[in-house]
């Protein structure tokens, strides 16, 4: 029995150790926004945890105490953001991104934890590769977790060792990049995972047969541009099927990057019927339309594809009314030479970590689609819950809580510069775009890893 608990059969992650070596941090003059509401207060961080919340400006003796005092005036102090959908590309595609470079992009975007996607080379479909990612993650500037493939090699045939991976802390299982199309295998995955509390089967919902030969949303633009289409129905069909399978098995299904209006409607109906289903949406699916592909620039090529203005409206509605639980980045770096190709030959995916918060503020909060608190629910505590990270991330800004915080200026206007991003890749579709809202400081487990917008190590 002791052996069992040593290997962590409960699947819990080690609680963050106290970090007495770190200097004390004081965030001064900010406005705290979290799930308990909103208040003006300074925050003192000591040994990796929040030590004091209140008006501590007067009692502070910066020089003698050796504390780092960070200006948070005009800023929101929020629980750190959590991305449940990050392609860190390591192992195997380090020319596009490494765990280290991706983590730098993450903290500059306000994320304190990311969940790496398993479509690496080799795939993260076994304990050895998963441990490698977690090991590399220890040297990263944010908290790095990993998802694992549902099936061996992401080939959709045989189940990966879900139990073994669960035991080292994996909670999200996905063949992302590819849809798990085989209904029987999906059924078995959902069924099997019910043995592991907190484990979730996450689906890249696009019916493989319907999207074969497709490179963009099927609609007026694909017809005009002569590019093969990936219809919205390919997503809606799998969403519908998997909700049926989840009911059948009692399993928990999470839909990644919802993009189509019809899928949002199906998920909404399922939630009303009490189904155990969650869903995420990406900033690009509430910001960009298929019209962007008109230039044939594959920087706009992504799966599922950019869709129509009506779909954007539906995604926004879903984010506002609770149908969609999470904003996830689907950060997908590709080297320049891979995107310097004709549209249909280029790989799919776009960068997202450093622009997700700003796009949420610019496209959703500023126009009044959602409140700031809802935005933070979508970016912080909801994804923390789905990823099983609530012990350390997405907690209220309160004394005794782990100090994972994001401090951002919600009115700072800046212009996206692809070459100035921390990612190794430059494939952002927002180059030259002006966004509102910028991260000023990021605190990861009590360490100020971003100060005044710059990564400190």
């Amino acid at each position: 029995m002791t052996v069992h608990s040593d290997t962590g059969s409960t699947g819990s992650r080690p609680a963050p150790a106290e970090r007495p070596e770190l200097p004390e941090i004081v965030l001064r003059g900010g406005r705290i926004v979290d799930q308990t509401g909103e208040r003006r207060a300074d925050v003192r961080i000591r040994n990796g945890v929040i030590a004091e919340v209140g008006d501590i400006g007067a009692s502070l003796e910066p020089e003698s105490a050796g504390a780092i005092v960070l200006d948070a005036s005009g800023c929101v102090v929020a629980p750190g953001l959590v991305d449940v959908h990050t392609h860190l590309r390591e192992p195997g595609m380090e020319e596009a991104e490494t765990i280290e470079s991706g983590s730098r992009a993450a903290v500059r975007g306000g994320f304190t934890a990311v969940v790496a996607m398993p479509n690496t080379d080799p795939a993260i479909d076994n304990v050895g590769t998963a441990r490698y990612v977690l090991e590399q993650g220890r040297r990263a500037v944010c908290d790095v977790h990993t998802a694992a493939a549902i099936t061996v090699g992401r080939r959709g045939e045989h189940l990966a060792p879900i139990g073994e991976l669960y035991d080292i802390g994996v909670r999200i299982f996905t063949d992302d990049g590819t849809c798990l199309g085989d209904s029987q295998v999906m059924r078995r995955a959902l069924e099997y995972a019910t043995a592991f509390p907190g484990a979730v089967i996450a689906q890249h919902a696009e019916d493989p047969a319907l999207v074969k030969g497709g490179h963009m949303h099927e609609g007026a633009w694909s017809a005009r541009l002569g590019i093969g289409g990936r219809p919205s129905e390919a997503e809606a069909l799998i969403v519908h099927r998997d909700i049926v399978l989840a009911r059948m098995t009692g399993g928990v299904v999470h839909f990644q990057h919802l993009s189509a209006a019809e899928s949002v409607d199906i998920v909404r109906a399922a939630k009303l019927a009490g189904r155990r289903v969650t869903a995420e949406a990406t900033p690009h699916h509430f910001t960009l339309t298929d019209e962007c592909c008109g230039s044939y620039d594959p920087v706009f090529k992504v799966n599922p594809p950019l869709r129509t203005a009506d779909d954007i409206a539906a995604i926004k509605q879903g984010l506002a009314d609770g149908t969609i639980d999470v904003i996830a980045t689907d950060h997908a770096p590709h080297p320049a030479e891979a995107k310097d190709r004709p549209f249909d030959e280029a790989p799919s995916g776009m960068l997202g970590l450093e622009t997700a918060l700003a796009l949420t503020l610019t496209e959703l909060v500023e126009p009044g689609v959602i409140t700031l608190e809802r935005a933070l629910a979508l970016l912080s505590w909801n994804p923390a819950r789905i990823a099983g990270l609530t012990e350390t991330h997405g907690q209220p800004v309160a004394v005794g809580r782990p100090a994972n915080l994001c401090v951002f200026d919600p009115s700072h206007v800046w212009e996206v510069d692809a070459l100035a991003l921390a990612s190794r890749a430059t494939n952002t579709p927002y180059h030259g775009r002006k966004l509102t809202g910028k991260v000023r400081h990021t605190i990861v487990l009590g360490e100020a890893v971003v100060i005044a917008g710059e990564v400190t190590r």
Partner: protein
Amino acid sequence: MKHLLGVEDLTRADVEEFLELANSFLEVTQRDIAKVPALRGRTVATMFFEDSTRTKLSFETAAKRLSADTLSFSVSTSSVKKGESLKDTAQTVEAMGADAIVVRHSSSGAPHRVAGWVNASVVNAGDGWHGHPTQALLDAFTLRRHRGPSLDGLRVLIAGDVKHSRVARSDVHVLTTLGAQVTVCGPPTLLPSTTEGWPVTITHDLDDALCDTDVVYLLRIQRERQDAALFPTLREYTARWGLTDERAARLKPDVLVMHPGPMNRGVEISSAVADSPRSLILEQVSNGVAVRMGVLFKLLAGDGSTSSTSSTSGATTAAPGAAGATSSRTSGEGASR
């Protein structure tokens, strides 16, 4: 105008200008020595990533008749086989001194990408399912010679695999821009999933559509579409959507038949119809040279880069004159080689 990447942005005036240019160059192609020095010293490269007979030969002939030097590239004998990218290939061709690069590629938008990577003018010679601008211009040119000068109200039926046809996409735009009324016909699976924004009438009934048209434009049907479950058999396709001898016999005598080639005789068009007097198929090919001369001239010389005039219209009106004035000198050069 620097590039010709598509026809979507061409206005009626733009199209008419291309057709006028083609008209003056058609005269050149009919001379004993069909050559003018309009592009002497300029280099036109053809970069074909797909097999092609008529378009490649047509562009190279057009360039030579304008006295341009030509560089010919075909994928089967190039470093593309060693994995060289489109970008590197295009930049390499430009580094050889190409002023214009004529691109044929199986990817829609490939010429648009090339245009972003080089300083040379780029001409789309067919990209994926997207477009084939010079084909559309030569089709309009051919129709104008038979039913022109105005195509206003001319009824054109485009029949076949519209979904996968770059010719159909470009022809629909160019012909409707010139005032023609276009109907597209084919099995629902071979029409675009949406024709929202297309200025066309859609029908699936060829027999019905044939009663009511002045021109029948047939598209090549590719055998591999059958394997993708787009239609059951070629036999059934021909029976429903092919221009068979029986259907042709019911056509009014003055109805014209066109095809961009290469044909599948006996599938979308019967051999007898293809070779009948109403068929413009070979004339389309002949006219292609003059049209492409016009396009190359417009892009390389039409904006004043070789003459003192800088305005587009000025250069255009100068073209036939320039061609005529210098033809004898060119003849001499041609003969001395």
